């Protein structure tokens, strides 16, 4: 059994959605809780069982109320757990914290969360083991962590406990003081933040807060202060660099209490692990930033120790400190020192690569005392970073790829600034030389990683120095040489051309590169070309043909020389793939601006293909192109294709081209993806029903209840009997207006299941959907295997008036539990008496039989009028008894394929009783969450038993 759980839990955490599609969240949660309560299970298994609750609480607790119940359940497990199972108790606390926070119970201060808070505070204060063996200390530490997490997610939760927390922190001498310190600092920070949001809060409020005498009035304020809009602001870190604004609390210079508290926290910070120390430092930075009455100088005594550290997080916290206080804490000498320190750290032999890269990033976002730019997140060089200083970071061939590129980028920025003045780019010369060495490595068959690194470095170089023609021209030449020797690099070169064209719109370097590549391809001897090389050449020429500024005659000469039967065997071989590459080039030439001058040679090439190519399909395509070329005028060709060209993006252009003729007729099926959902399905009102019950009470069915049930059951021998539920939905546009999608045709809806509770659905076709016309009705026929609520993914393919075909995703469709209800299916002739007898027969069976059946009772307070409305609104189609018989309503829900839920609803003196019976006990959780929702909508008073 234990092994089975290990497997199941790991299956769950691998793919939670896949795992839950085989069962339901409710069922899995129930199983977990049962096993957790089981005394036979070992604690190591139980720890494992908690991990789904810790990692995916919201998947298992679908609603806040389920979360609340689960938390109560786990708390009772905790209460009964012997103190010696320390690990399990710790994990239980973590699971409870996760559930309460993620289901928002903690935020709404639910009963369970308040109880849990008390439990945590009790554990945190329980220092009875201080002279014992310390075995309970991990539980105390975990409790502090849970309190900190609760405070982090619900800021202000513990604000009025500041004094208590301060005391706990001070008296603890074991390593646990770290946990108390972390908690204390966070609560302090949040409390001060909240004060900054109060209008008129001043020094006396701060004093009261620290002393723990929080007035009731303020507490009430605090509750309301936690509105949603502020909620995420308080979660954010406040240190945003020089241009960020921090909310402030004006206290005047008199805040002795706070100052002494901060000093004591700082003085003990040395006792914390580097990670906790960094976090503490950051919290205190925030507090001091918010209270201008406390001078930042209180940090000064710690700075040297922090600046000399080998720990990345401590130095980082110090940099953030600098960002927050700039010249009120750091002189310009300090600044120069820190920058130098960063340069040293960026290349320190003892640090690992990610740390060094991080430091390099810190140099490019250095918190300067007097920044020139506005710190909008762009990389900028600090003024103090001289070329001399930066020379410690020149890239070398022994760097790994990431380091090399980061250094290349940094040095490019340095030399870009330097270039304006003084020595004509010695640094630039160095960078180019370095680029050349990288190129040599690629030339000497460097691995894939070398190739990628080289092209990225080349892009960087061009990005910064494209305007220095000396180098950019030389690079073009070298790239052409490289290409001739390594033709397989074609996709990298095309990518480089594309990216430089996109990013450097004012430069035409990439056109120059493509022109040069065209030349080397067309001028090189054809003799040793393999078909692989040839296909790369053709891809490259196709890219070249996209450039209107490049003359295409040499390309056409090349094409004609490779397909002329006398000079090459290509045509005779009839390679389909190569043929397509050739056609690809021709296709782009068809819309080339200089088509007029290309007309004859292009026609010749196509003619050659038509007559001599060895593949039928290629011949056909070539014939189509030939026809288009010879019969359509240039304007018409351009007109047909204008759409894509106007939008200017290469991607789109390719697509619309392909729509026309990429792969013949099949290209019309090229499907494009919409960016957002275009339409959705909404529940439509039910169709008006015919007469439910045979009006004349002539009763033709069997007389006796059990026999009637028997006869009723016989109907199921036909497997298709009452096995489907039909749901009506309207198909409507989602409001965002996009004229392109106003009129849609041939919509084909496709549904996919998210679990295994239903049979697969067939596709549904809708002829058209117009924005201004009434929405078409779609009938979804669901065939349940188990009648559980479910969610369906939906997607659609449709056509727009311009002939394009689109694929879109619809918002998910949620099928609620009550949507799976059907009325009882009996022959019409049985009349009301017959259905009543079925009801009675089933009721008796369910109450007596064990099996899967179960009974239950739900009570609530409803006035008679409210009850009547409820029955009419929700139960009418399923009502078995007469509506006028008010003393007891009998309701029967049939849930395909074979389940029933029976209700007897009666008003007793104290409350309305819903007696529930079902032949499928697994449906009980659903009905017991369904009933409260419908009854509470009738009446707000509600109590369930």
């Amino acid at each position, binding site marked *: 059994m234990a092994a089975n759980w290990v497997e199941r839990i790991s299956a769950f*955490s*691998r793919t939670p959605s896949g795992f839950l599609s085989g069962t339901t969240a409710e069922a899995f949660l129930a199983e977990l809780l049962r096993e957790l309560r089981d005394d036979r299970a070992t604690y190591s298994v139980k*720890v494992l069982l908690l991990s789904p609750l810790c*990692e*995916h609480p*919201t998947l298992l607790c679908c609603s806040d109320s389920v979360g609340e119940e689960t938390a109560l359940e786990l708390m009772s497990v905790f209460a009964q757990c012997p103190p010696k199972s320390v690990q399990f108790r710790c*994990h239980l606390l973590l699971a409870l*914290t996760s559930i309460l926070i*993620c289901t928002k119970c903690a935020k709404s201060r639910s009963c369970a969360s308040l109880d849990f808070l008390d439990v945590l505070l009790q554990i945190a204060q329980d220092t009875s083991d201080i002279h014992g063996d*310390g075995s309970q200390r991990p539980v105390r530490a*975990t409790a502090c*962590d849970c309190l900190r*997490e609760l405070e982090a*997610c619900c800021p202000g939760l513990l604000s009025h406990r500041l004094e208590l927390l301060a005391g706990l922190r001070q008296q603890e*001498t*074991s*390593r646990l*003081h*770290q946990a108390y310190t972390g908690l204390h600092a966070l609560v302090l920070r949040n409390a001060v933040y909240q004060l900054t949001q109060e209008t008129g809060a001043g020094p006396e409020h701060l004093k009261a807060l620290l002393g723990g005498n929080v007035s009731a009035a303020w507490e009430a304020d605090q509750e309301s202060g936690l509105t949603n809009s502020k909620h995420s602001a308080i*979660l*954010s*870190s406040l240190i945003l*660099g020089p241009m960020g604004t921090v909310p402030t609390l004006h206290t005047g210079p008199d805040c002795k209490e706070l100052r002494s508290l901060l000093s004591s926290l700082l003085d003990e910070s040395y*006792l*914390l692990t*580097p*990670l906790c120390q960094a*976090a503490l430092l950051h919290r205190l930075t925030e507090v001091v930033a918010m209270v201008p009455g406390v001078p930042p100088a209180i940090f000064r005594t710690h700075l*040297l120790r922090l600046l*000399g*550290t*080998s*720990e*990345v997080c*401590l130095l980082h916290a110090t940099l953030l400190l600098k960002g927050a206080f700039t010249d009120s804490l750091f002189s310009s000498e300090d600044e120069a020192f820190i920058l130098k320190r960063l340069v040293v750290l960026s290349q*320190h032999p*003892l640090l690992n690569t*990610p740390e060094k890269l*991080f430091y390099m990033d*810190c140099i*490019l976002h250095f918190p300067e005392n007097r920044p020139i730019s506005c710190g909008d*997140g762009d*990389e900028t060089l600090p003024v103090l970073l001289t070329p001399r200083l930066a*020379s410690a970071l*020149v*890239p*070398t*061939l022994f760097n790994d790829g*990431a380091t090399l590129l980061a250094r290349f980028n940094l040095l490019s920025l340095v030399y870009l600034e330097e270039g304006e003045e003084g020595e004509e780019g010695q*640094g630039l010369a*160095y960078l180019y030389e370095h680029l050349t060495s990288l190129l040599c490595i690629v030339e*000497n068959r460097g691995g*894939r*990683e070398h190739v990628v690194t080289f*092209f*990225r470095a080349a892009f960087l170089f061009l990005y910064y120095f494209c305007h220095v023609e000396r180098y950019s021209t030389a690079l073009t030449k070298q790239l052409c040489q490289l290409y001739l020797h390594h033709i397989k690099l074609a*996709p990298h070169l095309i*990518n480089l051309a594309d*990216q430089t064209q996109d990013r450097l719109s004012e430069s035409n370097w990439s056109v120059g590169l493509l022109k040069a590549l065209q030349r080397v391809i067309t001028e090189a001897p054809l003799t040793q070309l393999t078909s692989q090389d040839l296909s790369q050449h053709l891809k490259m020429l196709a890219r070249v043909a996209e450039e209107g500024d490049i003359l295409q005659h040499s390309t056409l000469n090349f094409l004609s020389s490779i397909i002329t039967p006398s000079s090459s065997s290509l045509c005779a071989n009839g390679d389909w793939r190569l043929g397509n590459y050739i056609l690809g080039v021709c296709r782009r030439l068809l819309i080339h601006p200089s088509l007029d001058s290309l007309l004859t040679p292009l026609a010749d090439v196509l003619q050659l293909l038509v007559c001599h190519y060895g593949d039928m399909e290629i011949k056909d395509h070539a014939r189509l192109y030939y026809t288009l070329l010879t019969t359509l005028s240039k304007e018409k060709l351009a007109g047909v294709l204008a759409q894509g060209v106007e939008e200017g993006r290469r991607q789109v252009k390719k697509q619309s081209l392909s729509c026309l003729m990429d792969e013949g007729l099949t290209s019309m099926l090229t499907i494009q993806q919409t960016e957002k959902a275009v339409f959705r399905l909404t529940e439509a009102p039910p169709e008006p029903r015919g007469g439910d019950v045979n009006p004349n009470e002539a009763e033709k069915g069997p007389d006796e209840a059990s026999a009637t049930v028997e006869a009723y059951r016989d109907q199921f021998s036909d497997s298709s009997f009452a096995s489907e539920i039909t749901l009506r939905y309207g198909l409507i546009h989602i409001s965002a207006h996009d004229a392109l999608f106003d009129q849609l045709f041939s919509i084909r809806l496709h549904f996919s299941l998210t679990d295994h509770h239903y049979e697969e659905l067939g596709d549904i076709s809708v002829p058209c959907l117009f924005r201004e016309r009434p929405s078409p009705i779609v009938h979804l026929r669901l065939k349940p295997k188990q009648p559980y609520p479910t969610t369906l993914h939906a997607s659609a393919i449709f056509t727009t008036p311009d002939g394009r075909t689109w694929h879109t*995703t619809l918002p998910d469709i949620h099928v609620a539990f009550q949507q799976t209800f059907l009325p009882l299916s009996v022959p019409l002739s049985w009349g009301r008496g017959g259905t009543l007898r079925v009801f009675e027969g089933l009721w008796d069976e369910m109450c007596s039989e064990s099996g899967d059946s179960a009974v239950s009772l739900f009570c609530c307070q409803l006035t008679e009028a409210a009850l009547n409305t409820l029955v009419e609104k929700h139960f009418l189609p399923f009502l078995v008894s007469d509506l006028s018989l008010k003393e007891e309503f009998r309701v029967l829900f049939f849930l395909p394929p074979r389940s029933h839920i029976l209700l007897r609803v009666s008003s007793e003196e104290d409350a309305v009783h819903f007696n529930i019976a079902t032949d499928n006990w697994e449906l009980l959780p659903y009905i017991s969450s369904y009933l409260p929702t419908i009854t509470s909508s009738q009446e707000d008073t509600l109590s369930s038993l």
Partner: protein
Amino acid sequence: MTVRGLWIISHEKGENVSIRFSRRFSTVEHRAKSLAGSSYVAVPEESTFLQLLLTELGLSDSGKNYVALRDDCLYRPRSPALELHVDGPGKGILWPVLTVSQGPLILACLPLVDVPPEPRPPLANLLSVSQGLTLLAGLQTFLLGSGSKPDSEGLVSRLAVLPSVLLQVCPLGTPLDVPLPGAPATPAVPISGTQKQPAWKTGLHRGRALVNVGLIETVRSMQYGNQSRQDLWDVYVTLSLPPNGSPLQDILVHPCVTSLDSSILTASSVDNYDGSAFSGPYKFPFSPPLEPFRLCSYTSQVPVPPILGSYQLKEEENQLRVSVTLKLHESVKNSFEYCNAHLPFFNRNQMGVVDMKMSSGQLEVSKEKNLLLWVLGQKFPKSREVTMEGKISFSGPAPGPLDPLCTDLTAYVKLNFKVPDMTLSGCCVDQHSVQVYSSAKPRIVTSRELQSKEYYIWNSTGTAPVSSGQMTM
């Protein structure tokens, strides 16, 4: 200051990839959702995450020459923070995914972005990034040990205890500490009295009081034997206490050091050295953790390399004429623990006849690897100079190893040596200067050693890799 999730992945050069451990921190995810608002991107399930991560790391589709997503030349600062492009219903960019990898393991975590997500904040604004890096590095050391070869059985057993380790060091996504390598800490006996115990001290030391101070200097060198190119060498050190020595620079200290003098920190290798720098003694007051630790590290610039070499190759018909000279500097103690020279030859056929003469030491020839290993042993001869000369023909039947950097006459000699009881900078720890404030009288042991790393002597007749160090500006 928290992470949303943690993943540990094992692979063999991009093959047989699997997630060995993963942990999501749901409460942090909850915060991420409210912090990011509409730009929130959920963490995808394991398999999707893995696929996206491998693509970003350039490890996917290893058979394919070019994959657009993986090989795009557009420069994005990928490391140390990757972007994962999540597709499908919850599509968007998951950032910043931190990774560290060593050998067969990739460790990844996703720090919480706790500042407004638009426009994207720089990494330097997120404290959670450096915290994540520290956590990952700590886990890596815990799982693989520092350096040396990872053993797969040890890895399995350490992965198995990871859940209870995480309970201590990162229970709810906020990293509190890094796991201690080796045995899990026994709960410490509480200390009576009012003095607080440092959180990084795991317990009380039992046994003899002993202070062991080891000083290791490591020397790197690039020698070109060429007038136009400056030879380079520098020294860096893993040490404990350095007093009275030559100027030490770039000092980094362990967090257990309680206070520092500003004069110790100011010397830096990126400054012009003006001779006026502080030259000791360097004092570090600290309260030591129980396990061995690196108290501080420094770099230093020494005027000459310990071993000056010259390497010359000449191509002659079908063979290569080799000439190597190594000179030990007089200030260096002539007593090695070991000293070897490696001479690899790349991009040639396997070696045929090797005819070499040397003035000292033995030669081991590995024909499959095209490698000469010159074992110099414990001592240089009296003259402090050794030479090796001879010819190699590469007439073997099969091609030898390839290297894209060392083509034609670009070749190097790599020196590996270790000299006990000496440092190049002259830095040392005086036994009597170690002051211990403790009731127990500890024994104090100090040691020194010099070792080489990346010590290359390039062939002066070929083109040495051009960009191999600082340029003169």
